[in-house]
């Protein structure tokens, strides 16, 4: 940190120490929330505000950065530092901020259009660099703010204003894209499962390195019910596979089905028909990146439940820490640079 920033931050009075632990309310700004009534964004905002007090990070050290789209209004509603950027670039703004200020806790709020279409390039590079930033990608499989065009996660054949005969694009699977970009923390959760969301968001916040959370989010105006199979009571248990580290992959209302690995292919087996037992099932391991690829690849496959949870959580040095370390070792090796040394370097000569 620079001389001046250090001086400023060491001289400021600490915020009036709250009598009790801050509450979710302390993270609500004075701005009216302007999403459509019934939007899944409300739940994500509420759960985020609920977990932040548990992180033990002062509010002034938190920054929420977004791009453009419905989800990107999020920072305005947070009583933290916030930056509503331009379309697709939140990840790049966050990268620069984290490099300049490794002391901050930085969140990127983006959507399937902002983060995977116009901002796809910055997203993959953020993840491969492993910059310590938390990304929540609100995936509603549609463009909401521009009023209903298909997005890079819309299913093939989707009929929208810009695809009256059905889209001919194959969708991204965000979790696979993140894994393919060497992201160290990759997870998926859902707007209608607040408890799960809280767990995942907390884990994402605690992870050192890039955390990528794909959040299924219902757009009740332009793509209502896109995830109902996975979020609604009547269909959820039969169609969702909750990933839990160290536990066998079991699902079903009666907990009577599991995922067995046939070669490299995951298949559903019954635990009731006497042919398979729990010991035949895959045991989830967040540290196994090969397994993470296999599980993420179950997405969009018919006859397989949709995996929800943490696909992967690996430890690897972060870009921001290595940047700081290179600077420190340069200072150690060559001495702290002075203006005299800088300007007088190389061959010089004097004219009397």
């Amino acid at each position, binding site marked *: 940190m620079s001389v001046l920033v250090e001086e400023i*931050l060491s001289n400021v009075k600490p915020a009036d120490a709250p009598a009790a632990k801050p509450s979710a309310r302390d993270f609500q700004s004075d701005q009216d929330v302007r999403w459509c009534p019934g939007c899944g964004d409300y739940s994500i905002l509420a759960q985020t505000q609920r977990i932040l007090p548990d992180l033990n990070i002062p509010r002034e050290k938190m920054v929420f950065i977004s791009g453009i789209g419905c989800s990107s209004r999020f920072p305005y509603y947070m009583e933290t530092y916030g930056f509503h950027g331009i379309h697709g670039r939140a990840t790049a703004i966050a990268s*620069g901020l984290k*490099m*300049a*200020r490794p002391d901050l806790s930085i969140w990127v709020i983006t959507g399937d259009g902002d983060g995977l279409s116009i901002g796809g390039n910055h997203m993959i590079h953020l993840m491969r660099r492993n910059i310590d930033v938390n990304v929540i990608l609100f995936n509603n499989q549609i463009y909401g703010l521009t009023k209903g065009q298909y997005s890079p996660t819309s299913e093939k054949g989707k009929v929208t204003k810009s695809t009256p005969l059905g889209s001919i694009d194959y969708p991204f699977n965000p979790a696979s894209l993140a894994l393919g970009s060497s992201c160290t923390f990759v997870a998926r959760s859902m707007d209608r499962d607040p408890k799960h969301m809280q767990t995942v968001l907390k884990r994402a916040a605690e992870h050192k390195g890039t955390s990528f959370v794909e959040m299924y989010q219902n757009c009740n105006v332009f793509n209502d019910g896109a995830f109902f199979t996975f979020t609604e009571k009547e269909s959820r248990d039969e169609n969702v596979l909750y990933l839990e580290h160290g536990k066998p992959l079991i699902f079903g209302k009666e907990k009577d089905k599991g995922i067995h690995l046939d070669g490299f292919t995951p298949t559903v087996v019954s635990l009731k028909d006497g042919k398979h037992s729990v010991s035949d099932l895959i045991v989830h391991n967040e540290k196994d990146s090969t397994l993470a690829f296999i599980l993420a690849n179950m997405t969009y496959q018919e006859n397989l439940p949709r995996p929800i949870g943490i696909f992967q959580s690996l430890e690897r040095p972060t870009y921001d820490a290595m940047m700081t370390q*290179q600077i420190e070792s340069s200072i150690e090796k060559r001495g702290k640079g002075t203006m005299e040394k800088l300007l007088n370097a190389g061959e010089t000569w*004097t*004219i009397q």
Partner: protein
Amino acid sequence: MVKTTKSLDEVTIRFAGDSGDGMQLTGTQFTNTSAIMGNDLSTLPDYPAEIRAPQGTLFGVSGFQIHFGSKEINTPGDQCDVLVAMNAAALKVNLRSLVNGGAIIVNTDGFNDKNLKLAGYEANPLNNDSLSKYQVFQVDITKLTNLALADMNLPQKIVDRTKNFFALGMMYWIYNRSIGSTIEWVNDKFKSKADIAEANIRVLKAGWNFAETTEIFSVRYDVKPASLAPGKYRNITGNQATALGLVAAANKAKLDLFLGSYPITPASDILHDLSMYKQYGVKTFQAEDEIAGVTGAIGASFGGALAVTTTSGPGLALKTEAIGLAVMVELPIVVVNIQRGGPSTGLPTKTEQADLLQAIYGRNGEAPVPVIAASTPGDCFYSVFEASRIALKYMTPVMFLSDGYLGNGSEPWLIPNPESLPDISPKFRTDPNGYLPYLRDEKTLAREWAIPGTPGLEHRIGGLEKEDKTGNVSYDPENHERMVRLRAEKVERIANDIPPAQVEGDEKGDLLVVGWGGTYGAIRTAVEQKRAEGKSVSHLHLHYLNPLQKNVGEILYNFKHVLVAEINLGQLIKVLRAKYLVPAVGLNKIQGLPFKASEIEKKIDEVLGNSK
């Protein structure tokens, strides 16, 4: 044999060869040695965009011109007095740069049938009278280099790569230069490769000794030191000076320097230089693209860094939207544009000044940005420092314009005393009482910088229109107009905070030649020449392109004629005509090359001739 020594005031030499022949290195070594010997000088590297184009071809020719002397030198020279041509193609491409009666030193081995064919010569020009108006010195540099290294058993490839040092050695002898500084450089560069170091030094000495012994060269020349201002000097390119200026600005601002950049010719050297300054706390981020370079800088600026992005024209086009964001959120960044020939990919390695209007106006909406341009390689240091000062004080993106000619060109640079540079440290807001993100300083109209980590100042900024003072999102019509006018007024007020423009020559007269950026040396040389001839001509060179200095109009009105010389189709002239309604005429050249002083002199005669 008896060799005579003649004294010269100034000489221009052009080294030319294949792009893999090391001509840039040869030129740079000659330059540094001449600088250390006290000459004033100016250089023009002229190389193709291809790294190693097919050998012997016309488009693979790389050149380096140096103009040095015992008098004041402001340009790399209109034409060269000496052409060193390593092959037939180099001769063919560069012959038109040579003065009548000039000297050609050729490597005869570069004129075999294959070379002649590739260069498009039907007959060997060394064997007929096509070069009769020049003095031709034929040396089989390849053979002599091989002989010098015969007992070293080096691979032929290595041997071939040293032949440029034979040419350099000869030129050092002819112009009475010391070879010591180049030997030091070789020893340092090849520290871990002793045989390569020895080969280069041997060949360098062989070239020197050959020139001294052979009867080919009977005259050597002496170019005395120039009477430069006293002080300590180093030779510097515009890009080196830009990197130093940015580190100095961060130091004087007491901030960390953050660079977000994507490699692009001819700006990459600034990224390279700053990457070596880690012990100064400099953070360099080689981004995935131009947009990430600038938005990364905006993020760093939000965090309280002196944030910079460096690029060239096509990259600037990509950064446009983000610069508009910086205008809206009123955060300081310095955007460095080393202009090159355009449009599109254009001429990556050639110079041009055609991004001025893009710099001043090239954004959506009313998005004013201060624009500052450097005039010489050494001036890049001061101009980018000034750009940083304005960015920090006025909380605004600032465009710093240099160009390929300044960036790669070099000159002796009087090293400044760091104490003489002003303190430009910003005042971060810390008091939460009464804080609103868009409250402004009454005088500068700048908003306050409140950085994350400061308790009680949590706030949100973004690209949507801001409500005056609170910074909340606002779609109110009157508020929008007020904010557009406030942002414009803030940039206009910078004119109150910059020194007045200075005319070189008389304050009144028949003709004022106006320029900006890298044309300084050529215009200065031409105007001085014409003034020496008794013409009523003066020179105004603008460093501040937006806003213009307050006295510019007054200066223009004091002359009967105004001539605006630019390396574009006429961009500054549009700005001056629009603002001051002056009937200025333009001198425009768009060849990827700087002006020659003689081209400006001719135009001055033409304008003054018409006025009689």
